[in-house]
């Protein structure tokens, strides 16, 4: 995380002096960080952020929901101490173990060693690493959907919502207040001590930018989380960054729905879509691209499209790929590698979910031909499936090689429709690929 220029450290806007009651018996005990300018090496945070944590008081004790970044622990403990004693803490809920929420945990556990720690099963791995030898000293109980924590007259229910940016993410529901604690989901990197969505400044841009940078690569996990959470119909959503959402929370759920739909979800019906994106310096790879298109277009039920990467801007291509069922990349080998425009595109693909998409690579080369293999490795790194080994042609393709390219296109399209012929191969043949 990167801070603003030293010496110009801004003070948080409207910082509350103590804890803030957001619902009966529920206190905000978080911290404001007006200094942060870059979060997770993923996004800019022009006005800083907040680390929200909460204390829920029940007849049988207090639950703490998440903590804050270690640098802001003092602020968190001061607010906590103003509304609860450490020996009243029965439960510590960790909805997510990233350091911005677990930073104050080791110290909190030293002060409240009898509390039961509840995180998702996937959180255990990180918790073990965070606590080291102390892990065994504490009462740590993993929870998932269907589990709850009893505070006497009120109950916290857990909802397992994995992979909404880390494997460990979960949400916690306080039924009597219809209050949903979502940690990073529905967050904004927006620093404003007035806390509530109807009181703070205009944070809508931050809400959406946050979605784009942190949640968009996990689109289908976000959709699964929405499926689980929407029926709760919360009266308030309390995330761990930015404003507490109490003005028609359903609006925010709907906005996440909208954002998590592929931008181009209109028009193609049940057809599969295959995008061929290529770069060509002398026209050889371009001719192959046309042949791949011609072959793939023969397959009914597949919409194939062809784009010269150098003719377009990156971000519409990224939107296109987010929605495509498969992509085929064409690149010549230039200086022992794929063309620059291809790498620029591939670097942007971490912004979207690529897991499970079909990928394939082809290209012309002069003597060494490294580009195809390099791009294949990258597509595998993006968790795509590559059913066909890449197609390479030395210099300009012959008629026979163009027919190979058409066939390559036909086979790729057939993989999308499920009509690809099953193949059986031995180890020697596999090694030769």
């Amino acid at each position, binding site marked *: 995380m990167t801070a603003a220029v030293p010496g110009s450290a801004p003070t948080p806007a409207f910082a509350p002096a103590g804890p803030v009651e957001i619902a009966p018996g529920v206190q905000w005990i978080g911290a404001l960080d007006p200094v942060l300018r870059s979060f997770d090496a993923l996004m800019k945070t022009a006005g800083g952020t907040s680390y929200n944590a909460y204390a829920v008081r029940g007849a049988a004790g207090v639950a703490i929901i998440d903590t804050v970044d270690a640098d802001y622990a003092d602020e968190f403990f001061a607010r906590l101490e103003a509304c609860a004693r450490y020996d009243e803490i029965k439960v510590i809920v960790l909805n997510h173990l990233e350091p911005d929420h677990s930073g104050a945990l080791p110290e909190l556990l030293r002060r409240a060693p009898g509390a039961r720690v509840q995180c998702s*099963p996937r959180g255990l791995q990180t918790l073990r690493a965070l606590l080291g030898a102390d892990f065994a000293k504490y009462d740590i109980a993993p929870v998932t959907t269907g589990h709850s924590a009893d505070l006497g007259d009120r109950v916290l229910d857990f909802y397992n919502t994995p992979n909404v940016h880390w*494997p460990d993410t979960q949400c916690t529901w306080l039924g009597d207040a219809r209050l949903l604690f979502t940690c990073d989901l529905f967050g904004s990197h927006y620093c404003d001590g007035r806390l509530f969505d109807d009181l703070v400044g205009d944070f809508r841009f931050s809400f959406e930018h946050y979605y784009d940078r942190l949640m968009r690569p996990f689109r289908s996990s976000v959709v699964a989380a929405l499926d689980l959470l929407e029926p709760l119909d919360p009266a308030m959503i309390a995330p761990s960054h930015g404003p507490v959402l109490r003005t028609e929370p359903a609006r925010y759920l709907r906005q996440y729905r909208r954002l998590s739909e592929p931008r181009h979800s209109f028009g193609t019906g049940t057809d599969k879509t295959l995008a061929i994106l290529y770069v060509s310096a002398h026209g050889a790879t371009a001719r192959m691209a046309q042949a791949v298109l011609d072959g793939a277009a023969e397959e009914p039920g597949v919409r194939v499209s062809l784009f010269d990467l150098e003719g377009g801007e990156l971000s519409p291509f990224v939107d296109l790929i987010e929605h495509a069922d498969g992509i085929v990349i064409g690149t010549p080998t230039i200086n022992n590698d794929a063309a620059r425009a291809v790498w620029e595109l591939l670097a942007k693909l971490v912004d979207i979910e690529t897991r*499970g998409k079909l990928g394939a690579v082809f290209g012309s080369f002069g003597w060494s031909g490294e580009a195809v293999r390099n791009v294949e490795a990258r597509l595998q790194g993006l968790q*795509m*499936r590559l*059913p066909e080994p890449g197609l390479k042609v030395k210099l300009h393709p012959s008629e026979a090689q163009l027919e190979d390219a058409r066939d390559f296109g036909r086979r790729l399209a057939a993989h999308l429709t499920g009509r*690809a012929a099953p193949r059986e191969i031995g180890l020697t043949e*596999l090694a030769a690929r």
Partner: protein
Amino acid sequence: MEKATLTFTDVSITVNVPPGTRIIEMSEKVGSGITYGCREGDCGTCLTHVVEGAENLSEPTALELRVLQENLAGKDDRLACQCRVMGGAVKVHPG
């Protein structure tokens, strides 16, 4: 030698493998979408769904069992970096 086959349904390929082969040794070469992180049974990235032939895979070790459990894996899910095809036919796809 006894024969075993390992099918990756996401890329429609069956590989003839010697018994004892780990899924990880084949899946990347055939281009399957099964992906790896730690490659040593710790992270759960390689979670793989067994469509057929679960009984032909090696018994999960204590380490694999723990990671499967922490990943809330279904009964036919395995870690591709850990389990071995012991014989017969096994069909898998990314988890």
